[in-house]
């Protein structure tokens, strides 16, 4: 906390330390949320530039990393929105389609068989919003309220976004399995 107080006061050394401590995590967040490594690098730099202005708004009674992730999430989502990257399949008609509940045993098998690397690769194939939602929830442990706020959706809809994201992910993970088409009832 001292570090943050010093950085707020304009201490350049504190800024350097703050960057050293949080940049790797923020870069990884951006790397998971954005389509390319270059985008993630750019976004990380921009987030830290932004941080200089925004740090005054930080409420010290809250977790700094949670607040920082929120700033990062907003920045990444803005970036994707500007590029209209969210105009992908999950943004349009897919939202209207009903989801089919997977067959529990098949889902278990799929989860057992997949590695972290495969999951990350599958994540790359997801639509922007689905990907963003998963990263916010399972990487930075953001609350439903924070996710709703960042994505600009109503709070009760966050669960739906996450469930759809999981379905997309399962489809990407098991292109050739029965789950790829939604599983069985």
């Amino acid at each position: 906390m001292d570090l943050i107080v010093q950085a707020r006061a304009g201490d350049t050394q504190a800024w350097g330390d703050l960057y050293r401590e949080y940049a790797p995590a923020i870069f990884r967040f951006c790397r998971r949320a954005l389509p390319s490594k270059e985008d993630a690098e750019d976004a990380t730099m921009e987030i830290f530039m932004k941080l200089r202005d925004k740090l005054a708004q930080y409420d010290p009674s809250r977790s700094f990393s949670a607040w920082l992730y929120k700033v990062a999430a907003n920045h990444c989502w803005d970036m994707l929105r500007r590029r209209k990257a969210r105009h992908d399949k999950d943004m349009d008609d897919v939202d209207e389609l009903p989801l089919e509940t997977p067959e529990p045993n098949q889902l278990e098998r799929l989860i057992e068989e997949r590695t972290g690397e495969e999951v990350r690769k599958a994540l790359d194939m997801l639509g922007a919003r689905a990907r963003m939602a998963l990263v916010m929830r399972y990487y930075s442990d953001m609350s439903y309220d924070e996710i709703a706020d960042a994505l600009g959706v109503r709070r009760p809809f966050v669960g739906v976004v996450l469930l759809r994201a999981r379905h997309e992910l399962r489809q990407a993970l098991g292109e050739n399995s029965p789950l790829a088409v939604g599983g069985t009832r």
Partner: protein
Amino acid sequence: MSETENTTNKHLDEMKLLLYVERQLDRESAQEVSLHTQTCDRCLTLLRALDRESRLLTRSLLEQDEPLPARLAEFQEKVRTSMQWIWGVVFGMALLGIYALYAGYIEPWEQQVEQAGFNGTNLLSLLVFQGAFWKGWQSMFTLIEFVALASFAGFAFFLGRKYLKRGTALAVMFASMGLLLMTPGRAAAIESRHGEAVTVAKDEKIKGDLLLNGQRVRMEGDVDGDLIVFSQDVEIQGHVTGDVLGAGQTFRISGIVDGNVRVAANTLTVSGTVGHNLSGWAQHLALEGSGKVQKSVWAFCQLLALDGQVGGDLLAYTQSTTISGTVGGSVDGRGESLSISSSAQIDGSTKFVGEKPPDVASRAKLASPVDYTKLQHRSRMERGSGFSIWSIIWATAYLLFGLVLLSLLPQFSKEAATNVEHVGASFGLGVLVGFAVPIAAVIACVTVVGLFVGLSALFLWYASLYFAQIIVGTAVGQWILGKTNEFWPLVGRMAVGVLLLRVGMAIPYVGFWFKLGVIVWGVGALSLAMYRRLQPAMAPKIPSMPSGPVGTPLPSNTTVGSA
């Protein structure tokens, strides 16, 4: 009905189970799920699978699969210094640049301008009346070129900033701001009249300034102040004690104006009296036999016919000038032809730079013979080494301008350079924006409110012509040397691309069309990038949800519930 079927019919839906795993259900719903999964194997299996899926996701996302890139490690140093500081420096340098522009270009003109009746000293009036209006569009070009140099200066300052103290730079910056902006113009209330046909009757007396706007305007009364008129057809027969400023298709002044007249019109005719100076931008400008201008006339027009009396100097940038009246001062003309008839009298010197020698009637009364200089159209080759040196200077300025743009707007520049690859869209949009914006800006200038907006738009439009070449140059460089997202490699590609473009533009005859193509292409790419950025954030398509707390019934299309 069998027991299995009964159980199946009561299966919980996936959404509810997920919310249970995520601890988002209220107590009642959570208990329901808990009780149900104690007796239903299928739902319990699904619940466990969802929980394991959550853990798999968290583990996969948190895994440190790649180190922090070198670029970000280097960036740490940059984070230590404030970007606000850099902006402050660039802004300060831009202001200093404007001050240098004032001192180097504008101030020498000030005396002459004051003689012509412009005694405003604030920055806006100087820029508008001296930069853009008086010196014509060429001045705008010079201004933009100067901005390129100012950017260069800003960049040099940026590089050397660590050797300077922040306080010093800020002091210079604010001092510059103070110098430039400390003399704002006076604000005054103004009466206005609008309508299809606007008339100020003969016996009307208006105290203060008057704004008239309509299809036809007749001013037969008295205005004790300035008169501002925008109309298709204007006739001023009355008396104006201040200045007349205006624009119209046909503009006639047969009354008395004690101050200055500054008018842009298709046809401007003066048969009355102007107490100070007359400045006209028109296709045809005529000072009729009965017309008098006590001081100077500045004419920027196609045809100028001067039959009346001018007390001071005549400055004429025209295609054709005919002088039959009297000029009390000197004549300075530039254009295609000058004709001085036998009834003309010029008390001062007469200079003419033109394509044809002046046609001077033998009976014309001139204080001295016409000093004629033939207008030279020299080719680039004929301009010699001076031209080559300037070409190099400007090519360098281009590169530095590009460097500044890439560092200040990295993301936007990259997006624009990527858009260059969308050849059709870029060219189409380039043609539209390249031609429509100046037309719209000129139209905007016709109204008082739109004047500043119009001039600003023209300024930005012209700046975009330069930016366009940088963007196309960057794209060309990337085609040759490969794509990159790193800053300095990108600058290198931009430099290569811009230099190649400059070579192409230097080719005789073809160069102009090549340049035009590059500009249209680049402007289109820029516009496309701008358009994408300005797109409003679209609300995602989401099915309607109950607004109650989590745990209330969910929309039917999100889950299948029981089979």
